[in-house]
């Protein structure tokens, strides 16, 4: 499986994450991982001049990294993602080296912070994609699926997968059995009865509790 990683330069903006100055580029060639921090500094300090746009720095809970708010939303994803990715790579490198040298890693909580930042970024991207899809096509879910029954009589949300052949030619898919055999009917009945019984018990208990409370705190003796 060959994947091409698209660099930021191929996007519509001419803003590139790669460092411009030769000094930083040299450092990245001689020392690719430590150069990331220098690259970071380069980018952070050189940011307000890029494209003449206003960029304000906001500090997040992520200690070292400032999530920079850029006015165009297309920049925000790629810029922040690569910064976070590079920071994570650097932290993993330092962690491994500290293990090798039997030395304590300085401030290991940075890894957790970077992971949380990446998760938040994913959440933002997902939200935007959902909104866009809803507006353009009206589809709620990105991945198609449907409610199906499995062999045990339980309903579950089945998410579709891509296959190169139709389902009636797929041996493994046919083995999965998305139907309930007839002899499972008594068990579904029993589980339904159990569910209804527990529901009734909960409601009855709630009513009894209310009755007890109304005896303790009756309306006649209520004081405003």
């Amino acid at each position, binding site marked *: 499986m060959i994947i091409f990683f698209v660099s930021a330069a191929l996007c519509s903006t001419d803003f590139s994450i790669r460092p411009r100055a030769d000094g930083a580029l040299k450092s990245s060639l001689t020392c690719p991982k430590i150069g990331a921090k220098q690259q970071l500094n380069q980018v952070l300090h050189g940011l307000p001049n890029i494209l003449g746009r206003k960029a304000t720095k906001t500090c997040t809970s992520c200690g070292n990294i400032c999530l920079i708010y850029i006015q165009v939303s297309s920049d925000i994803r790629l810029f922040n993602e690569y910064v976070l990715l*590079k920071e994570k790579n650097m932290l*993993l490198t330092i962690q491994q080296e*500290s293990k090798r040298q039997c030395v304590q890693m300085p401030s290991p909580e940075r890894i957790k912070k970077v992971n949380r930042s990446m998760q938040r970024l994913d959440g933002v991207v997902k939200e935007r994609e959902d909104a866009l899809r809803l507006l353009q096509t009206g589809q709620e879910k990105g991945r198609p699926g449907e409610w199906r029954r499995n062999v045990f009589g339980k309903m579950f949300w089945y998410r579709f997968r891509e296959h190169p052949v139709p389902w009636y030619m797929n041996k493994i898919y046919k083995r999965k059995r998305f139907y309930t055999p007839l002899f499972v009917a008594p068990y579904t009945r029993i589980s339904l009865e159990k569910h209804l019984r527990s529901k009734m018990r909960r409601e009855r208990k709630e009513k009894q509790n209310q009755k007890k409370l109304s005896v303790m705190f009756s309306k006649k003796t209520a004081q405003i």
Partner: protein
Amino acid sequence: MGICESYPIYQLGNPQLRIFRPTFNMTLVRPGKEQPPDTVQFRISMEMTKCDVRNYLEKIYSVPVGAVRTRIQYCSNKKRNHLNQRVKRPDYKVAYVQLSKQQTFQFPDIFPEKGKKHEEGSVEEIQEKFMEDERQRQKPDPRRGGVTEWFGL
């Protein structure tokens, strides 16, 4: 491709798969055995291929890559915990990347040793001096040339 990990299947004639936000991380490691000066050693995810490594470094870090060789390091499943269950140390893939354009890379010293110097007259200094004297006293007589005290009169 950050959120859903299953990639679309490839059939002849499909467009090339492109990823904007890779979930892979590459860890630079110090080589255990001596490597040629243009070789950099990485620990990568098991799912990455040589082409992935090349594209990752070229596009994200803009490092000119010549050749990439990978191998999978199997880690032991032999150790057992207090419940006598076998504990697996996770396997990892190692990539040896050779830089092009006659560049060299030397793994830097990230944790250089600092010489500790205590202030004069402090408790730590006196303790250090005492420990040093003790060690001197415990050392054998250098005139004996490494021979133990057992032999002799």
